Structure formats: structure tokens, C-alpha cells
């Protein structure tokens, strides 16, 4: 409903709600940006820390492991995005264009998403202990790839079903192989779907805590587990913890700024973490 009159009342209501919803982040920023003196004096005391010492500490100056957690999260998330795309794009092509399985396989993929990640906790722990992969970046790429592939398969299948088949048929008549058609015709047209899959997979993998907490101990720890441990082990370094958390939420937020259209479309279509 868009009446032409601007509604300043709605503006005020939404502004207050947006403030409340973002209070945790605002609180963390507030603590990260004020001096230790101010933090020690009271919860609402403000004194700007012009040296950004908390951010410097979080980024390595104080000797925390946080920088390596951050690198792990980046490696795990980008690795998962690559794995998921490599597996699900050809899979979707096989289902939609080459008649592999048919619609029931997509319904199966949706159905699998009902199974919560916690169901895989015990089997994954036992499997990957035997495989000797515990506490590696690889194991988190594998398990996050596993939980995110169904969603990617659905997004790619829907996008492929909307592409006109004519060009591929023409290329096929001219003697292009399946892989040539995929590489030269289909992939360039699937740009938006690839961004959607990339952004959603990145977001869900970056957010993973459950798998990381059982499958890593020190070497491959991502920021989610690192920050949660940080708050218990360095209990009183509030400014540093706040700065570390603010830095940890930044990458998905930056993605959200640059790819909001894709994120919103995907989330609105019911994309949720497995």
C-alpha cells in the first residue's frame, strides 16, 4: 500500500525498531570504540578510543589467536562456496537438462532440508575421527558443503529451468559436447543464480557453530567458536572481545550490502540454514 503522503509516524516507529534490533551490534561497537577507562567506569560512560586499541589488539597486537580464526573462517567459507558450486551446478544441469532423476530428486533435496544439522553430529564426529580429518579446514569445508548442497541444487535447478533451451540445442547441433554447452552457454547465463548460491552459502558457512565446535580444537577454529571461547576465557577484556566480534560479523554484512538483492530474494524464497 503506497499512499502518496509520506508517513513520518511509520518512519519513527521503524527507526526505533531498527535501533532495538541492532542494539547488540551497537552495544558491541560502543564497547569496541571506547577506552578501557570508560569501560571500567560504567556501562554507559563514553570516552572515544582514538588509537582504536581494541581493534589493534583483536587483530594481533595482544597476541590472541583471533587473526588465525578469521583466516580459518575465510578459507572455510570460500572453500565451501567453491565445493558447493562445483558439485551442485553440474548436478542441477544433469537433473534439469539431461533427465537425471527428474523432479522427485529435487523434492527429495527439499525434504532432506528438514533434517537438522545436529542429526549429523555423532556420525560426522566418528567418521572424521577415523579419517584423521578432525581439526582441519578441509573437514569443515566438507560438512558445510554437505549441508548447503541441497539448497544450491534447488536454486540452480530453478534458474536452469527458466533458461530457454534453444541456444543449447543449436550448440548441440553444431557438435558442442555437454561440457562445452555447460561452460560456454549455461554458466555465463547463470550469473545471478551463482551470486545467490555464493552469498547464501558464504553466509550459512560463516555462521556455522555446531560443526565447528565438535570438529575443531585449535588449528582450524573459525571465528564463531573462537569468539564464544574468547568471551569465557578472557572474561574481562570486554573492549577486545567486542572489537573481535565486530570484526567477525563484518564479512557477511559487507556481502549483504553488495548483494542485498540476491540475499533478500534467496531468503524470501525460504532459504534457511540446514
Amino acid at each position, binding site marked *: *500500500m*503506497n*499512499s*502518496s503522503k*509520506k*508517513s*513520518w509516524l*511509520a*518512519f519513527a516507529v*521503524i527507526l526505533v525498531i*531498527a535501533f532495538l*534490533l541492532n*542494539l*547488540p551490534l551497537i*552495544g558491541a561497537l*560502543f*564497547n569496541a570504540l571506547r577506552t578501557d577507562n570508560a569501560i571500567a567506569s*560504567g*556501562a554507559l560512560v563514553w570516552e572515544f578510543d582514538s588509537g582504536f586499541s581494541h581493534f589493534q589488539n583483536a587483530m594481533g597486537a595482544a597476541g590472541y589467536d583471533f587473526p588465525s580464526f578469521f583466516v580459518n573462517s575465510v578459507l572455510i567459507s570460500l572453500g565451501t562456496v567453491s565445493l558447493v558450486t562445483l558439485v551442485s551446478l553440474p548436478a542441477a544441469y544433469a537433473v534439469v537438462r539431461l533427465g537425471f532423476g527428474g523432479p522427485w530428486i529435487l*523434492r527429495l533435496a*527439499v*525434504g532432506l532440508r*528438514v533434517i*537438522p*544439522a*545436529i*542429526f549429523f*553430529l*555423532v556420525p560426522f*564426529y*566418528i567418521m572424521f575421527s*577415523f579419517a584423521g580429518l578432525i581439526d582441519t579446514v578441509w573437514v569443515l569445508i566438507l560438512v558445510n558443503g554437505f549441508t548447503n548442497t541441497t539448497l544450491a541444487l*534447488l*536454486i540452480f535447478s*530453478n534458474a536452469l529451468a527458466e533458461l530457454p533451451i534453444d541456444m543449447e540445442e543449436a550448440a548441440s547441433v553444431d557438435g558442442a559436447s555437454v561440457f562445452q554447452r555447460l561452460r560456454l552457454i549455461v554458466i555465463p547465463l547463470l550469473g545471478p543464480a551463482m551470486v545467490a548460491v555464493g552469498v547464501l552459502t558464504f553466509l550459512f558457512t*560463516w*555462521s556455522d*557453530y*555446531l560443526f565447528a565446535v*565438535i570438529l575443531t580444537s585449535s588449528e582450524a577454529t573459525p*571465528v*564463531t567458536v573462537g*569468539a*564464544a571461547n574468547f*568471551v569465557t576465557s578472557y572474561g574481562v577484556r570486554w573492549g577486545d*572481545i567486542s572489537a573481535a*566480534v565486530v570484526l567477525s*560479523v563484518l564479512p*557477511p*554484512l559487507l*556481502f*549483504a550490502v553488495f548483494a*542485498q538483492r540476491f*540475499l*533478500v530474494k534467496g*531468503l*524470501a*524464497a*525460504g532459504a534457511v*540454514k540446514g
Partner: protein
Amino acid sequence: MSRDLLSDPVVELAGLDNYVALVSDPDFWESIGFTLKFAIIATSIQLVLGFALALVFDRNVPGKKYLFSAVLIPIMIAPSLMAVMYRLLLNESIGVVPAFFGLFGLQVSLFSPDAIFSLLIVLDCIQFVPFTFLLFYSSLQNVPDELYEAASIDGSSYFETIRRIVIPILKPAIVVVVLLRFLEGIRNFDVIYILTGGGPGTSTQTVGIFIYKTAFAQGNFGMAAAASVVLVLLLAPFTPWVIKRLSTSEQQ
């Protein structure tokens, strides 16, 4: 089965022993009860608040683009990182929330057994009202303006229009929101585990926390696996519904 199975992998069939042990464990039933109660109450509140926020947004709001982005921020934040920020926010020495209550001379202990359930619901809403809002707001864009105009010409009041026209049109979105939030609510692990660890006692132990603790604190992998299977069996009846609703909505 115990953690020893990793060094000494002998396969010995346990029959239904693990299931028998599970169903006779009162902690398991308590965790099922807590999880259902949490999921149902959180879903209901998020349904109403998300819908209300979408209606407020669906006007000519100045700066809508920026407000929209601001409201969606909590969705992009990892629940576990959100939990760490909640701990900072609610901390008795540096938290803004206790300090705010302190300004009015109020001493609140948010983590006390009486308050903890409401606190967890409020915190869940902070992160997921933006999500229910997003689903409702996207569907509201499909309601043609002419419908509102026709209704108002016919003398229908705003709330009558919402009740008789908008809600029936949004029925599919309502079903999707309830389904997704309920299933997600059942899975809840990160935030509650980081904030309370399932406590005080076992009063906020979700099925997820029960499974995690049974496997990794008690080393009872067999019973944890049995609990995982029971959890999936509880969710299984929703599968056809999810397939029907989600495979159509994802195609739009």
C-alpha cells in the same frame, strides 16, 4: 558405545538398548518439552511481530531503502556471534541493558530461573523477527494497490481490510513462516548453548543441547545417536508439507 570406540572399533549390536535408555531418561523428555514450548511460543510471537512490521513498512516511509537494510542486519549475523554480543549487552558490569534498568533504580537479574525463558524468547525475536518480516514484506508486494483502493471506497476500515483481504492473500506466506520458524526453533542450539549451556540446571536444555552433551560431555554416543533419530522422526511428519510449500515458493 562410548568414546573408546574411536580407539577400539569393535562392532557390537546393541539392539534397542540405547532407545530404552533414552526413553527412560527424564532429561530427554524435559528437553523435548522445553524445545516444543520454545519453538511454539517463539514462532507465534515472531509471526505477529514480523507481520505487524511488514504492514508498517508497506507505506510511503521516508528513507525506506536504508531502514529496510538496517532491519535486515540481524539476519546476516551468525547466531553464535549474536550470542556473544548478547552476553556483552546483558553483562552485569558492562552491559547496556542492566545499566539502563539501573537508571530507574531497577535491579534485574535476567538470567534468573524466573526470567530466563522470557529472555531467550526476546533474544530469539531480535534475530528472527527480521526474517519473518522479510517473508511477509516480500509477499505484501504482490497485493495490488487497487485492492486497497477498492476496499477503502467501499468503506472498509484499515483493520477490516487487513483482516478480510490482506491476511487471506498472505495465507501461503503465513504457512511458510510458521513452518520455517517452527522447524528452526526446534533446531535451536547456538544461542541457548552459549548463553546458558542449558541451565540453570537443565531448565533451558534444547534437544540439540541434550544430544551434544550426551555425546561430548558424557561420551554416550549411542544414546546421543538414538536421540538424533527420535528428533528426526518427530520432524518427519512435516516433510511432505515442507516439500509442497517450499518447492513451489522457491520457484517463484
